[in-house]
């Protein structure tokens, strides 16, 4: 983990110490995040390598930590390995012929990389998959109820859980008896998160919740995520392409490129970092730049390789 208030650019040919922007503002938020993470390693992934189909190397040694009660963003472009990282934690990889070939994944101090997804949900880690994946022919309420499959609870407890989800997602209550396949994208995303909540998780791996949604709905969903984090003490590991929104709602971020973590830091530091701004937010110090003027590849090269 980086020293508080600094950014680390991790690359093999790290000329000149990378791209620190230890600005005045970032020194302000010497958040307790890192220390807390070190004190109680909650979810930690250590040097994980993932190979699909025995040949396709997707993750090339990824390490990251999520502290208890934190929201950590995992950012990167298409194909960087965000989803793969989440699936390697939730053990959904094997269903896609992927395999964790190196490294270890620990949750609350015990290794979880050989468990089945079912075991893992029982232990409190659940994934909300990219693209919602609601059960289209089940009603919203039935969808939510399937989330509680792993819990052996009474009818009243089940009802309470359901009410709690409806409390956070009032819209789902209105649509409770319509088939999930016919609800809107935002409602489906809420349904998917609500379904995960029904399992009473301690940690939710949230894969690309903003996908295909209107900005307003995205904000709404992220607000609820923040709310859940604060009130239900659910930790989140959030894979996102929408860097701007993700950094706004998370407290720590990792940037993944080509199966490697190339940068990590506090969300506020990342959001103000020049490279992040340029590559992920489409902004730069001098405003809009012509692509001709920037020697794009040079800066980028430091990260990659």
């Amino acid at each position, binding site marked *: 983990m980086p020293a508080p208030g600094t950014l680390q650019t991790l690359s093999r040919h790290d000329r000149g110490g990378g791209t620190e922007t230890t600005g005045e503002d970032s020194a302000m938020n010497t958040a307790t995040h890192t220390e807390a993470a070190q004190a109680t390693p909650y979810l930690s992934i250590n040097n994980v390598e993932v190979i699909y189909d025995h040949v396709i190397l997707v993750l090339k040694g990824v390490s990251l930590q999520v502290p208890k009660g934190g929201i950590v963003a995992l950012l990167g472009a298409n194909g960087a390995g965000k989803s793969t990282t989440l699936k390697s934690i939730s053990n959904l990889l094997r269903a896609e012929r992927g395999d964790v070939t190196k490294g270890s994944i620990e949750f609350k101090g015990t290794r979880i990389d050989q468990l089945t997804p079912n075991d893992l949900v029982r232990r409190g880690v*659940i994934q909300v998959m990219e693209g919602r*994946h609601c*059960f289209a022919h089940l009603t919203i309420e039935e969808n939510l109820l*399937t989330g509680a499959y792993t819990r052996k609870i009474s009818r009243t407890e089940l009802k309470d859980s359901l009410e709690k989800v409806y409390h956070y997602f009032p819209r789902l209550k209105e649509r409770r008896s319509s088939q999930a396949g016919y609800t809107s994208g935002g409602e489906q995303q809420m349904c998917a998160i609500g379904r995960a909540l029904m399992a009473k998780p301690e940690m939710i791996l949230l894969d690309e919740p903003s996908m295909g949604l209107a900005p307003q709905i995205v904000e709404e969903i992220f607000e609820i995520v923040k709310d859940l984090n604060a009130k239900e003490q659910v930790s989140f590991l959030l894979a996102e392409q929408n860097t701007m929104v993700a950094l706004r709602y998370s407290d720590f971020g990792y940037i993944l490129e080509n199966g490697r973590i190339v940068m990590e830091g506090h969300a506020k530091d990342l959001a103000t970092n020049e490279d992040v701004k340029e590559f992920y937010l489409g902004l730069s110090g001098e405003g809009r730049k012509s692509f001709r003027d920037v020697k794009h590849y040079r800066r980028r090269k430091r990260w990659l390789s």
Partner: protein
Amino acid sequence: MTFFFEVLIGGLLSGVLYALVALGFVLIFKASGVFNFAQGAMVFFAALTFVGFTEVLPGWTGLAEGGRAVFWLAFLLALGSMIVLGIATEKVVLRPLVNQPAITLFMATIGLTFLVEGIAQGIWGTSVRGLDLGIQDEPIMWVLDRADMIVSKFDVFAAAVALVLFIVLALLFQYTRVGRALRAVADDHQAALSVGIPLKHIWAIVWGVAGFVALVAGLIWGARNGVQFALTFTALKALPVLILGGFTSVPGAILGGLIIGASEKLAEVYVGPFVGGGIESWFPYILALLFLLVRPEGLFGEKHIDRV
């Protein structure tokens, strides 16, 4: 007019039996996306195992031959065998093929068909046997007196059994935790995995239930036509039913069965004489073919929900 209704009722009742076989297909197809070609062989296996046990049990246990105790004991043993067969199929044949294309799984079940047929005949022999459920295939006198129609007592009994089975399964699917999980798995394997539904358990349950349905179908068909190799062909009769009703719908299987049963009997009686008879054996397939052109997903088949 009486005659028309007599044919219609006879057709509907036999349709229920087609539906019973089709139901086995639907259950497995819905939950695991496998078209289980071996369902007919499973029906045969179930009936043969049941009859085999009724033959050997009196010798083993000293129970009275043909008695109630032997019947239920044989039923339980046959049920146990079917569940074991179903679970073993899932474990040995299908699990190693997870994530393979549908056609691979289909081919595997064709192989399974021969294996199951072989095992059944290897254990119990190949001779044709009678199966007596204690209900005679005779007209119900009450109906004959009042309405002047011949309605088979056995057919009504069989239809009643099938109906009870349908209702129980429907309730199970609709309102229980496992039933919900079954439907969830049918919809989206990956998502089901992600919320912690153990696919393997669910598939084992489905194959077990399909085995149970095969047993009930086997008993009724066996009692009607004798327990013989031809029972495996009941699977072929289920195909047009599935095409009509949709591969993924339990109500569809029932309605499809009723339509096929009624239409083939009516066609035989009213159209048959003009083309030289024997229509009954091929009419369902023509109907299915025409239906495919109009509504490929079947009457109640799951429409692919597409949001536009």
